[in-house]
C-alpha cells in the first residue's frame, strides 16, 4: 500500500474552510473546524491563486509584445480549444493526485475511449444514436477507472505500476480494436460538441472545459468525494482509522478520473472527427505537468482545480506563443521544461513553508 507512506509533516496541517475553487487542503478527515491561522492561510492560498493567474497573464502579455499576430482573437480561441482535451483529462487527474496517487493511463486510456466512441458512433461501425454512444463511451472510461481503482485499492498495487500497466493495455487495445487505422466519426452533432459555438468566439470544447472545471471545483471542495480524496492524500492511515472506507473512496476517485478521461476523449475525437489510435502516449505527462503547474501537490493532500485549468492554458499558451515567436523547436522544449521545474520548485517551497507554520 503505497498510500500509507505519507510525509509526516502533512499530518500537522491544520484544516480550514475553503472557498470554492480556492486551494483545497485537508488535515484530519472530516473535520472542518476553523482555526486561528485559518484567515492567514486563506489569504495565502488566495495569493497563490493570484500568482498562478498572474503568471499566465504575464506570459500572454509577453507574447503579445514579442510574437507577431499573437493578438489576433483567433489565437485566444485556439488556445482555449487546444487546451480543452488535456485540461479535462487533468481535472480528473487532479483528484487522483490529491489522494497521493498518479494516473499514467490517462493518455492512452483517453485514446481507447476515443476509439470506442468511434466504434459506437462511426458510420462504418455501430452507428448508434449519439446519446447512447456518449453514455457507452463514459462507461468505458468509468470501467478503465474501476480496474485501476480495484488494482490499487483492493490488490494494493502502487498507483504508478497499476496505471503504467493500464497505459500499455489501453494502448494495445486501442490499436487492436481499431486495427491501427484511424476511425472517422462524421456525425455533425458530435463534431459540434467541440467545434460548434454556442457563444461567440469560444468553441464548445472550451466552454465544456470551463463548465467541467466548475463542476470539478465544487466536487473537490464541497462533496464528500473531494474532501475524502484530500484526506486520503494527507494521511491515509488516519483517514482509515477515523472510520472512512478508504478502499471504496479510492476506487470512486479512479472511476471519477475515468469519467473525466472519457469526456476528454469525446472532446478530442469530436474536434477532429477522426480518432488516431496511435496517439495519446505522452499525453499523461502533459496532464501531470498541467496539474503540477496548477499547484496541486504530487505528495497528495492538496489540490487546486482552478490551478489545473490555468496550468493547461499556460502550457498551450507557451507552445503557441513560442512557435509564433519563431523560436527554434529545440529551445521551445527547453523553455517549457524550465517552466515545469519552476512550478514544481515553487510547490516545494510552499509546502515547506506550510509545514513550518
Amino acid at each position, binding site marked *: 500500500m503505497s498510500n500509507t507512506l505519507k*510525509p509526516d509533516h502533512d499530518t500537522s496541517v491544520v484544516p480550514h474552510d475553503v472557498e470554492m475553487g480556492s486551494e483545497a487542503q485537508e488535515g484530519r478527515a472530516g473535520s472542518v473546524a476553523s482555526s486561528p491561522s485559518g484567515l492567514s492561510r486563506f489569504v495565502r492560498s488566495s495569493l497563490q491563486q493570484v500568482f498562478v493567474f498572474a503568471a499566465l497573464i504575464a506570459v500572454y502579455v509577453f507574447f503579445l509584445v514579442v510574437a507577431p*499576430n499573437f493578438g489576433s482573437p483567433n489565437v485566444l480561441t485556439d488556445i482555449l480549444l487546444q487546451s480543452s482535451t488535456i485540461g479535462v483529462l487533468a481535472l480528473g487527474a487532479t483528484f487522483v493526485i490529491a489522494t497521493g496517487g498518479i494516473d499514467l493511463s490517462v493518455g492512452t486510456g483517453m485514446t481507447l475511449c476515443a476509439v470506442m466512441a468511434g466504434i459506437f458512433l462511426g458510420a462504418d461501425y455501430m452507428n448508434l444514436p449519439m446519446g447512447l454512444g456518449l453514455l457507452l463511451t463514459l462507461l468505458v472510461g468509468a470501467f478503465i477507472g474501476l480496474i485501476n481503482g480495484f488494482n490499487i485499492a483492493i490488490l494494493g498495487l502502487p498507483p504508478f505500476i497499476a496505471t503504467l500497466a493500464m497505459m500499455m493495455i489501453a494502448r494495445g487495445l486501442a490499436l487492436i480494436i481499431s486495427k491501427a487505422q484511424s476511425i472517422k466519426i462524421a456525425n455533425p452533432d458530435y463534431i459540434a460538441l467541440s467545434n460548434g459555438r454556442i457563444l461567440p468566439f469560444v468553441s464548445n470544447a472550451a466552454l465544456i472545459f470551463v463548465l467541467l472545471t466548475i463542476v470539478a471545483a465544487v466536487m473537490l471542495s464541497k462533496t464528500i468525494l473531494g474532501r475524502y480524496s484530500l484526506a486520503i492524500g494527507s494521511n491515509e492511515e488516519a483517514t482509515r482509522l477515523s472510520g472512512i472506507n478508504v478502499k471504496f473512496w479510492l476506487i470512486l476517485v479512479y472511476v471519477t478520473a475515468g469519467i473525466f478521461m472519457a469526456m476528454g476523449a469525446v472532446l*478530442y475525437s469530436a474536434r*477532429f472527427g477522426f480518432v488516431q489510435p496511435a496517439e495519446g502516449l505522452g499525453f499523461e505527462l502533459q496532464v*501531470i505537468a498541467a496539474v503540477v503547474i496548477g499547484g496541486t501537490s504530487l*505528495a497528495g493532500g492538496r489540490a487546486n482545480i482552478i490551478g489545473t485549468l490555468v496550468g493547461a492554458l499556460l502550457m498551450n499558451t507557451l507552445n503557441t506563443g513560442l512557435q509564433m515567436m519563431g523560436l527554434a523547436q529545440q529551445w521551445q522544449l527547453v523553455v517549457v521544461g524550465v517552466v*515545469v521545474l519552476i512550478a514544481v520548485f515553487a510547490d516545494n517551497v510552499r509546502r515547506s513553508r506550510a509545514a513550518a507554520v
Partner: protein
Amino acid sequence: MRLLRSAIAVSSLLALGLTACSTSTPTTTPMDSASPMDSASPMDSASPMDSASPMESTSGEPMGEVTKGDGTKTIYLVSKGFQHRFWQAVKEGAQQAGTEFNYKVEFVGPDNEQQVTQQLDMLKTALNSKPAAIGFAALDSGAASPVLDQIKAANIPIIAFDSGVDSDIPLTTVQTDNRAAAAEAAKHMAELVGDKGTVGLVCHDQTSQTGIQRCEGFQEWMKENAPDVKVLDPQYAGEVGLAANTAKAMIQANPDMVGIYGTNEAAAIGALQGVTESGKKLTLVGFDSGKAQLDAIGSGVEAGAITQSPVKMGYETVKAAIMAVDGQELPKIIDSGFAWYDKTNMEDPDIKSNLYE
C-alpha cells in the same frame, strides 16, 4: 515513494517532447512516410532511362520564373518531425530557397509521427501567424481537413510535401517519385550483375504507397529492359531481423541468386545481414541511408543505394509556395528527385547532404 513522485514530476518534462524516444508503433518511418491514404497515384513512372541524371527526372517541374520577395513575407512549413535527420535536411533545403528568393522560412514539426494533434495545433498556429503560404506534410490527411478548409478560407495557398493530402486544397504535392526511383535501382542492379541471373526482392511492406511503388517500379523496369534477369517473387519484411531471415531463406532456396534489392533502410540492412550470414557473395542494392548502410556501401559490401532528396524536397516546396503566392500555375505533382549513390560518389556534396546516419 516521495522520491518516486519527485521523479514523476521531473519526468513530466518528457511530456514536452522527449516522448519520441519511447514510441514503437506500426506506422511508417520518416523515410517512407507516404501514407497509404494517398489515394491519388499520379506517378506516371517517367522512364529514368531517358534522363541522364535521375535528379532531373520529374513528373512535372514548375514552369516560369520565381519572383524574388521583399524579405517580409513568410513561408511556413509544417513537417512530420524536426528531430530526425531527414526533416533537418528538408529544413536546410527550405532555408536555401528562402535565402535565394528573399522570403522568411519557418519550419516546425511534431515530436514524433504519432502526434497528429500536435501537428494540427502547429498547422493552426501557422495559419494564425498569417504567412504568405503554408507547406504541409500531413500525418493524417483526413484529420487535417477542417484546418485545411480554414486555410483555404483565409486565402493562404497551401503546398503538400513528402506525401499527398487527401484533399484538393493543396495546389501541388512535392514528393519522391518512388516508382522511378525503384526503376533506377533496377537499372543499376542490371548493370552490376551483367544483365543476367536471378535477383531477389525484399520489400518493406505491401500496403503503403512507398512499399508498393518501390517494389513494382523495380519489377517493371527489369521486365521491360532486362529480360535475362529473373526476378523472384517479392518477399515482404519491414524489420531488420525479419528481412535478414527472409533474405537468407531466399538465398538458400535459390543457389543461383546473384543480386538482392531492399526497398528501405530496414529491408536493405536486413538483406545485407542475410547475405553476410549466408556466406555468399551477392550484389546488394538498397534504398535510403542510415549508418549501417553507409558503412556497407563505403566498404563495398553493398553495391549502392537510392537516396531520396530531402534537401531538394524542402527547396522545391518553398519554391512552389512562392510561385503560388505570385499566382502562378503549378503542376499537380512536383518530383523532389532521387539519386543513385555508391562508394564512388557518396562523398559528393550534392549526395552527402541527402544522406543521414
